[in-house]
């Protein structure tokens, strides 16, 4: 009988982009048990939103995540528009779709690069980073920023597509159609990359459904789910967007890390198609429902109701729920369910029968965004450790919500 020992991956680890801890029980190199402990990066963003009006919260929600910043503001803005019934002009919807797809491009490329870095394939990592620069240039041409674009607002978008931007988008499409396939060939053709990613971190179809995996993680297990197809929003209804599942391309879905890689690579090609359609079908007209922000705020102040929005972020579906109370300028409450929250549940399953060497790759394979995911933190001022059960946690949450709402 081999001696078991515990090794922490994280909270700070070279292979991880954000702080999270996975305590692994090891027998030699084999993982026999895993406990995932988040809780290192809670920032209380939902609480901060209660002191701000919807326009201010846009900029707060943009900072939930560094990569899918636009997905979060889209989900938030759509939830506010849902609550206050605000229409969005068609041109603005097309521009939103464009930026969402640009964001998917750079998120997937970043992920593919980081996955290669995790298996020690530094050359592919650097190649991926070079590729990603082009889409960042387009975003900069459109909005002036590389990460938090500040493009979306309630009732439309803030930046229009000028001929110069349209030209840079065209350049980008040409560039990626030429340059992306070498990267894809380098990684998929590499025997070591295949040996490192095939049959690692397997999540079967049934498990993906039962544990509510979303986005590329679920699609790699063969689940046909894509909100762009099943409940189209913005301009997606105008194009046919099919869920990318590995069985359509390779005959079989393994549900492993390699499939997650392939799904993301094919989604990059899909995004290029969608951007092409968006640029072709871009309607003329206004990009804002109301230019005067004070009028927008006066309108949302009068509105009463709860709005909900789900969009397909690069990592899976991102859901925001917002409540606006009549006569209250600020957001009454706001809930964020980031895709990582749904995907992280599958981690312990993916760790089964794998090795220590695979652990960072498995954690990275769902493209985790820990700061998106962390919505609460329980602290004990005396510094004592305790375990809270699910019912206790629910009661505590309800009690705190009641206290905050002043009832």
């Amino acid at each position, binding site marked *: 009988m081999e001696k078991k*020992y*515990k*090794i922490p991956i994280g909270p700070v*680890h*070279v*292979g991880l982009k954000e702080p999270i801890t996975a305590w692994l029980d*090891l027998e*030699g*190199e084999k993982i026999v048990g895993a406990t995932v402990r988040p809780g290192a990066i809670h920032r209380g963003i939902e609480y901060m939103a209660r002191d701000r009006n919807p326009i201010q919260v846009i900029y707060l929600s943009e900072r939930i995540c560094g990569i899918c910043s636009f997905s979060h503001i889209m989900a938030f803005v759509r939830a506010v528009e849902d609550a206050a019934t605000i229409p969005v002009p068609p041109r603005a919807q097309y521009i939103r779709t464009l930026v969402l797809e640009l964001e998917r491009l750079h998120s997937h490329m970043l992920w593919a690069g980081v996955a*290669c*870095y*995790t*298996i*020690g*394939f*530094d*050359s*592919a990592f*650097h*190649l991926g980073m*070079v590729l990603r620069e082009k889409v960042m240039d387009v975003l900069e041409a459109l909005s002036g920023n590389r990460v938090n674009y500040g493009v979306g607002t309630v009732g439309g978008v803030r930046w229009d597509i000028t001929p110069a931007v349209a030209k840079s988008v065209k350049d980008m499409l040409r560039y990626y159609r030429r340059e992306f396939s070498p990267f894809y060939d380098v990684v998929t053709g*590499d025997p*070591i*990359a295949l*040996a*490192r990613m095939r049959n690692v971190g397997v999540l079967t179809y049934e498990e993906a459904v039962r544990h509510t995996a979303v986005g590329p993680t679920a699609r790699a297990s063969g689940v046909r789910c894509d909100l762009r197809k099943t409940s189209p929003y913005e301009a997606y209804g105008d194009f046919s967007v099919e869920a990318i599942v590995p069985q359509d391309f390779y005959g079989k879905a393994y549900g492993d890390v390699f499939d997650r890689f392939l799904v993301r690579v094919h989604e990059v090609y899909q995004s290029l198609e969608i951007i092409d359609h968006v640029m072709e079908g871009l309607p003329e007209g206004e990009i804002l429902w109301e230019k005067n922000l004070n009028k927008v705020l006066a309108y949302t102040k009068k509105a009463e109701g709860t709005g909900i929005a789900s969009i397909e972020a690069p990592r899976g579906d991102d859901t925001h729920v917002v409540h606006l109370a009549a006569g209250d300028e600020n957001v009454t409450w706001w809930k964020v369910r980031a895709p990582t929250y749904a995907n992280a549940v599958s981690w312990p399953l993916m760790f089964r029968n794998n*090795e*220590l*060497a*695979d*652990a*960072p790759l498995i954690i990275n394979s769902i493209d985790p965004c820990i700061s998106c995911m962390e919505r609460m933190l329980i602290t004990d001022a005396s510094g004592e450790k305790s375990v809270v059960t699910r019912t206790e946690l629910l009661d505590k949450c309800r009690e705190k919500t009641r206290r905050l709402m002043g009832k």
Partner: protein
Amino acid sequence: MIINLIMRLVAGSALLLLVLVLAFFFDGADRIVSARMQRRYGPPIWQPFYDFLKLLGKENIVPRHATPWAFNGAPWMAAASALLIFLYIPIGSLPPILGGEGDIILILYLLILSAASMAVGGFASGNPIANVGAQREMILMMSYELPLAVVASTLAWIAYKTGMPGEPFSLETFSGMSVWSVLGKSGVVGVACLFAALVLVVPGETGKGPMDIPEAKTEILEGLIIEYSGTNLALFKVTFALRSLIMASLIVALFFPWSLGRMIGFGGIFLFALDFVFFWVKVFLVYMAVITFMRTAFGRFKIWQASEFYIIKVAGLSLAGMILVSVDLLL
């Protein structure tokens, strides 16, 4: 007698100093070439020297759970045994400084000693992650020893059978006469197999390329050397740089012994000087082709995959080389 001893001491110290500088210099060149292959600019060529000097000025931290004597002794042992190897490698037409005292078997033992010292340092640091790294180092070492032993013994057998001048196991024998020239067709193919096997062993020996498993950064946070700092870490950096240089030098000494000086028809001191420089040029080319290219072109194996690769594929390749050479020598 005493003058001879002093001469050897002076020559030895000069050579080892030069080798240290060259090891860092090649390491810097390796980083630049690798960076250019990845479309990066890369660090200045003197970066390994800066790193080394900086680490010498840093505090040497010994973890609370470590065994201090083993933890502090391991880096010295690893660096010293790696450095000693250059006293037994012929540089160009110059005979090795301690030529008569040791042969290829001693070199292999010194290589094992330095790798084992690294593993001991990992085990002694009392960190579970370093422990995993040390285990991986041991497994890797056991895996590549078989092909390495087959290569060394087959080469010695060739030297013995074909009557190459000199002791069969001495490196001088192979640097005096090219091993490619003494065999027939199937023998040359066999030597090529041995050469390929030795090239594939290099990443494992140097801990680079697809075999950087004991020091895997994104898996076990530099593994073996996770707890090391200051002078101890500087010594490990020296060890890594030296091991790469050793493997490249061994390949040159065994398989590319051609002397430029003799070809041109130089004599005396010029022959030695030219061959000395030419030797390091060859080592540099082999370094770039074998170590830099391999480490840039591939990702990292898992430990069982690496073990399987060495014990089955590379060992098979070296045995095939042995059989082909035997066919040529016996028939």
